[in-house]
Structures are given as C-alpha cells and as structure tokens.
C-alpha cells in the first residue's frame, strides 16, 4: 500500500475514509435528534398550574391548632388520569383570613407533621422544623419555609389553589 508522504493533498483511500465517516456522522445525527429529543422531552414540558380544591366549611378551622386536610388532585399522568393524594395544613386567623400550607417539606418532600408539644411542624425524614407563626425554617436542612397556597372563600367553604413546587431549592417555583 502506497502511503502519501509528500504532504500534498490526501490519498484516494483517505478521501473515501473521510467521506464514509462524514456520511456516517450525518446519518447518526439524523437518528440521534429525534431519539434524544424524545428521551429528554419530559424535561421540556411547560410547568403545571394549580387546581382549585375545596377544603370544606371554614368554621372547622381554628386559630390555636393547625388542621391537616387530605385532598385528592387529579393529574394527567402520561396516558393515565391519576388521582393522587396530597396534604395541606390550614391555620385560621382573624377576620376570615387563613394560612394554607402545602404539607410537603421543602427539603425533599416528606409530609411535615404537627408536633403539639413544640408547636412546630416537623418533617419525619431529615429533621426539618417549621415555625407555627409563618412556616419559616427553624432547624434542619429545608432551604425555604413551608410553601403557602392561594385560597378563596366560596359559599362558606375554603377553596385552595393547590400547587406542587420544586423541592430542595431556595426559590419557590412551580413544578
């Protein structure tokens, strides 16, 4: 096999090698774009919006103790319309005002439980502690306080705009 050692131009053999490699790269790209696109497609979905869910009559909520309310959100889970359980904490305030918190700990999503002795919310997983007055972090790894939720009062019922948020980060961003 003759080698091109003069440094001028390329041999026919090398040229064909480059053409083959280029064609191969082109075909690989044509296949890779849709395949990788479909693979990462879930990450490019637009953010979900909240859904308004009734928590029941407003007079069952008190100022002294937060009340846990289990709700069911209806989500389109791929090809399944899924009914998923969620939990919120409700605290009543004066003049028909309320505070409604998404019960998920902002660290990694365990449901924060109410501790009547300490009067704090505590996550059972990694020791996150949240204050009764405003849901701020008192101790543990959570990067932000409990996520408060929008609400309105309709026909004597407390209706909350339930929304899941991204966890483990400082900003409260919709998921």
């Amino acid at each position, binding site marked *: 096999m003759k080698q091109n050692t003069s440094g001028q131009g390329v041999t026919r053999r090398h040229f064909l090698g480059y053409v083959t490699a280029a064609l191969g790269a082109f*075909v690989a790209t044509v*296949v890779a*774009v*849709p*395949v990788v*696109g*479909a*693979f990462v*497609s879930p990450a*490019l979905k637009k953010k979900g919006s909240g859904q308004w869910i009734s928590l029941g009559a407003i007079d069952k909520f008190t100022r002294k103790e937060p009340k846990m309310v289990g709700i069911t959100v209806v989500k389109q889970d*791929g*090809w*399944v319309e899924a009914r998923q359980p969620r939990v919120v904490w409700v605290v009543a305030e004066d003049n028909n005002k309320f505070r409604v918190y998404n019960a998920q700990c902002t660290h990694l999503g365990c449901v924060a439980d109410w501790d009547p002795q300490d009067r704090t919310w505590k996550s059972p997983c990694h020791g996150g502690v949240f204050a009764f007055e405003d849901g701020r972090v008192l101790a543990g790894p959570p990067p932000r306080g409990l996520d408060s939720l929008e609400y309105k009062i309709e026909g004597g019922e407390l209706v909350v705009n339930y929304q899941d948020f991204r966890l483990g980060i400082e900003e409260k961003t919709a998921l």
Partner: protein
Amino acid sequence: MGTSVAQWLDERTGAGTVWQALFKRKIPRGVNFLYTFGAATMFIFMLQAVTGIILAMYYSATPETAYDSIMFFTTQVGYGSIVRGLHHWGASSMVVLVALHALVVFALGAYKYPRELTWVVGILLLGIVVGFSFTGYLLPWDEKAYWATTVGTNMAGTVPFAGNFLLLVLRGGSELGAVSLTRFYAYHTVLLPSLALMLIVVHLYLVVKHGVSVPPWLWERKPKLEAKRVEA
C-alpha cells in the same frame, strides 16, 4: 495526544486489532452494492434498538393502557411520532433487507464452503427477524394487531400433535389477552434481542474470519490470485 490515548487503550484491550479486522480488512476485487445488504441490515438493527429503547420507556403492556400509551407517545411526546415512525418503517425495511441479503448470498453461492455455518446462523437470524415482526405487531393493541395475532397464533395451533401446546404457550392462555400482551412484550424486548445479539456476534465473527466471498463472475479469472486476496 489522540494517538497516545488510542495507543494506551490498544495496548490494554487490543481494540486496534478488532478495528482492523472489522473495518480495514481486505475485500476481494469486484464486489459491488449487492454485498452491502448485510451491513444495511446491521444498521437497521441498531436503529430498531435505539428507537425501541425510547418506545419501551413510554409503553405500558396492559390491554387497558397499551393503545393509550402509544397514542400518548405519538401525540404528546416531543419527536414521538418520528421515533415511532422510524421503528415502524425500520421494521418493514429490516424484513426486506434480510430477505435481499439472503437472496444475494444464495444467488452468488457465498454460502458454500467454508461459510456454511455463517449461512446457518444467518437463517436463524432471519427467523428472529420474523419473530420480531410478529411479536411487535401485537403491541399497539388495536383491532388490526389483535386480529392479526389471533390468526397468527391460530396457525401455530394447527400444527399436528403439538399445535394446541404451541398455541397455549405462545399466547400464555387459550385467549389472546393480558397475559399474551406481557408475553409478547417480553418476547419482543428481552428474549429476541438477547438471542439476536448473540447470533449477530457469531455471524460477524464468521464473516470476519472467512472474509468476503469472491464474486462468481471472477471465479474463472486467475482463481489462485483471487483466493490469495481473500486469505490476506
């Protein structure tokens, strides 16, 4: 730097030898496009593998959800319709390509000594490709898929003596239903790919070992010289 990395790897793996054997091997004078169907089939197999992996991520093998999951993939997932389309058309073209490959090998007498085993393994692979087609056809679980597979498995049921046994084993029950669907999904995505991969390795090894056969139109011209080229 590029060469030193390649050298480092080659010293430890011998990958260079494999590369040489696969891509730098000598081929006889006079081969033409008829000799490319095997490689084309190999390319389609890889295409089916990558698109199939993506499809498997979105497929739910139950009678209630199979069709919905595929509709979700085609209409809601980015590039979903393209990936499914590639897999669909790839499936058809793979059957066409293996058939052409086998025809060319037969017509050119390339299956003769010493390549009989390459042929036998190739025929097994042909059977596997047909198996892929048959099992993949059911997975969309629409009317066409359901009835085509009902008819196909009923054919197996008419085999003398073993027919009923074959039918029940293929379907996983007497009726085509939930058990058949998971079974066919497992055939299509686990069993057949494993078998195909093993046989492809054997097939390629034999192709590399024996080299490409000399085209018959060169058999009479300087047979000794041509035979030497193949050995090299």
